[in-house]
């Protein structure tokens, strides 16, 4: 079978899984639903591998195919097909998405076991994977937007999964609204592209674009800026990032799959996919790169001070996506995609390990209350350290190779782009500190009561009393929106251990596929996609690569050492630093006041305009028109009604007088 057939099958299985689970939720036992969900994604992964093999059998230059099933919309010169575009980039994304998703489904199978919404969860999760695959396989901008909006919805549904939790539903709405801002940007960009180039098809658009636009012409600048709005909203870049930390209200597998490994990297994919357009608007590409740089630094500082375990990892996600956005914007396409892949491995792993710890803590996420889990949960701790090592770019791990690839490219491009290298290393230093801050705060030290209980008895008792939301203390609705009273930790669940084990191995050795000058698998595979791009022709020399790796390794070790000094050797030092740098700490802990700024600049004016419109337009104009019409009709009927007096004799008088009048008229006019 051809690569396109396999790709259609990749799309089919998650969709079938989602529908089957959704329709059969009454008939299917919970375990069966979990198996269906996991197996359908695993089948999609297998089909992705088959598509990969089938593409490998072809000439590197011929590895792009468009295929369409039927017309999606065909009117007046507009011909949109339900079509997919299969090339190394989309297959790369398919493999990352389905591969990581399979493992996360497996993890959820154990983790969500006692949840009331088990079927709902797997149906949503399969739907999400389908949407994400549609997004990456789409063959034109319309289907891209469909997939884009679908993943937005799936994200909303899964953040608000425990829908009786006030905090969760609020976070879901916030994520949805900010994502819709991005959707609008993307839709407007697609409109502009159609107006200028007369097509939505990737092939046609990228072929016509270089002839239709001159460099930095205002239309292409507008298109790229609008695309960036979409990419930034989805990928949580400044200033549209505030939804991502709040999205941690969702179940941990959701944070792991959607808000770390796959959906939030859609913006990176979008920029890589439309790199032809961005090369025509280098100014916008630089704006994107600087935004990525700003995000990676700002998010890293926030990750340094967060006391919520999952939120700290969420800020780290933002920061890492900043690296990717920076990479694909400056032209390090393969490196950016490579970092996307390794990040999917280690960040999914970190979230899984965090989920296991949070389950042990009965949904408490505050790291101030944790400690001593290193002895209590050996497997979880080992995988957590593996993930943290990869995140901190410890030499030899996957993050080590991918992060430095981006920074080495920036160095090779030279000039202004050296800023990215230098500040990228600053970010790497912060990354190592915050990654190991979490490790040192949670794993060693005096065991907290839960850890103590695990060490002594090997299992955890269920908490007594009615369950409450640990974030707000409000009582939980145990019928629907409730994670369950059980503690599903990795130590007690084989599927969770398998998923985490595989990811831990990948996080450690996943980088070996792309050792500069040795194998370069990812780069060679993705190279045909960037064919003809002048930026992709820039390659850092081997010397630059290895010097970069050396600096990166040294910085990672320094960061880890610094974290060790701060959080293990001299645990009082962070407090002292906090007091000394009070304003800075306040700024970081309050997330740079982004929420407040957005509230002040967008939400409040919008509310004020709304109130003004309510007072003036609604109350005066609209209500005036409506009640004016009503008053006229009422007044007229008042007059007419007085004639209907009910006096039969007055009717008779009118009748007779009328006829007499008529008779007189005819008599007079005839004579």
């Amino acid at each position: 079978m051809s690569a396109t057939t396999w790709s259609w099958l990749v799309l089919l299985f998650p969709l079938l899984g989602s529908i089957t689970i959704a329709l059969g939720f009454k008939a299917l036992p919970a375990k069966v639903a979990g198996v269906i969900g996991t197996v359908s994604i695993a089948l999609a992964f297998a089909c992705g591998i088959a598509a990969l093999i089938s593409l490998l059998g072809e000439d590197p230059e011929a590895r792009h195919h468009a295929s369409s099933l039927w017309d999606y919309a065909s009117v007046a010169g507009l011909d949109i097909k339900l079509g997919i575009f299969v090339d190394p980039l989309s297959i790369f994304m398919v493999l990352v998405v389905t591969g990581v998703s399979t493992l996360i489904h497996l993890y959820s199978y154990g983790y969500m076991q006692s949840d009331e919404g088990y079927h709902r969860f797997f149906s949503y999760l399969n739907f999400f994977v389908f949407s994400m695959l549609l997004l990456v396989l789409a063959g034109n901008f319309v289907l891209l937007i469909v997939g884009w909006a679908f993943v937005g919805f799936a994200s909303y549904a899964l953040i608000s999964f425990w829908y009786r939790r006030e905090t969760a539903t609020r976070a879901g709405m916030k994520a949805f609204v900010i994502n819709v801002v991005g959707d609008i940007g993307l839709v407007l960009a697609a409109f502009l592209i159609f107006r200028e180039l007369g097509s939505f098809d990737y092939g046609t658009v990228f072929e016509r674009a270089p002839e239709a636009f001159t460099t930095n012409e205002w239309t292409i600048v507008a298109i790229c800026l609008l695309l960036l709005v979409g990419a930034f909203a989805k990928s949580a870049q400044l200033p549209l990032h505030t939804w991502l930390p709040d999205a941690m209200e969702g179940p941990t597998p959701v944070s792991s799959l959607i808000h770390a490994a796959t959906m939030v990297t859609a913006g990176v994919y979008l920029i890589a996919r439309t790199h032809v357009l961005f090369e025509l608007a280098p100014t916008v590409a630089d704006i994107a790169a600087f935004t990525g740089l700003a995000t990676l630094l700002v998010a890293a500082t926030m990750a340094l001070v967060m006391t919520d375990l999952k939120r700290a990892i969420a800020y780290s996600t933002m920061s890492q996506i900043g690296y990717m956005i920076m990479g694909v914007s400056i032209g390090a396409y393969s490196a950016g995609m490579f970092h996307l892949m390794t990040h999917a491995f280690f960040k999914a792993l970190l979230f899984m390990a965090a989920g296991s710890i949070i389950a042990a803590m009965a949904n408490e996420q505050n790291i101030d209350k944790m400690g001593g889990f290193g002895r209590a949960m050996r497997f979880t701790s080992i995988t957590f350290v593996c993930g943290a090592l990869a995140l901190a770019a410890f030499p030899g791990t996957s993050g080590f190779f991918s992060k430095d690839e981006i920074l080495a490219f920036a160095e090779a491009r030279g000039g202004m782009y050296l800023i990215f290298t230098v500040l990228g290393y600053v970010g790497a230093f912060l990354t190592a500190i915050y990654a190991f801050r979490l490790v040192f705060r949670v794993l060693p030290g005096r065991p907290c009561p839960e850890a103590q209980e695990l060490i002594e008895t090997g299992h955890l008792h269920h908490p007594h009393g009615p369950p409450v939301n640990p974030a707000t203390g409000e009582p939980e609705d145990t019928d629907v929106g409730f994670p369950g009273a059980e503690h599903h930790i990795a130590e007690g669940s084989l599927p969770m251990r398998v998923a985490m084990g595989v990811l831990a191995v990948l996080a450690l050795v996943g980088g070996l596929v792309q050792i500069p000058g040795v194998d370069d698998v990812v780069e060679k595979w993705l190279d045909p996609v960037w064919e003809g791009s002048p930026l992709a022709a820039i390659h850092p020399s081997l010397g630059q690569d290895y010097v970069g790796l050396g600096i990166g390794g040294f910085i990672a070790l320094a960061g880890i050492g610094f974290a060790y000094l701060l959080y293990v050797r001299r645990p009082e030092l962070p407090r002292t630093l906090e007091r000394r740098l009070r304003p800075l700490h306040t700024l970081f802990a309050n997330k740079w006041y982004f929420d407040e700024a957005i509230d002040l600049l967008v939400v409040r004016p919008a509310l004020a305009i709304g109130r003004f419109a309510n007072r003036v337009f609604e109350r005066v104009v609209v209500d005036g028109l409506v009640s004016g019409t009503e008053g006229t009709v009422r007044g007229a009927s008042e007059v007419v009604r007085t004639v209907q007096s009910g006096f039969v004799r007055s009717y008779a008088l009118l009748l007779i007088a009328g006829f007499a009048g008529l008779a007189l008229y005819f008599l007079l006019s005839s004579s």
Partner: protein
Amino acid sequence: MSIEWYIVLSALLFATGAMGILIRRSPMVILLCLELMLNAGNLALVAFSRMVGNGEGQIFAVIVMVVAACEVVVGLGLIVAIFRRRLPLNVDDLRELRG
């Protein structure tokens, strides 16, 4: 005898009926006055028929009588119904259908 006498008599009868309808309040009397008006019409029809010299006018008069009989049936039925419900037999009081 010329036609004018008949016409004048018919007109007088018609005016009497109309006046009765306008000034009397009893539904019974109103019904009688209606009959008077119809028969004024009949008289005119018959007179014209004699003047023209064929029977068509008389046929019309017979039809009007049939209509009048039907109308009396309905009218008297209403009056009986009103009477049975012990409502006042006064058209000025029976005005629940006012707008």
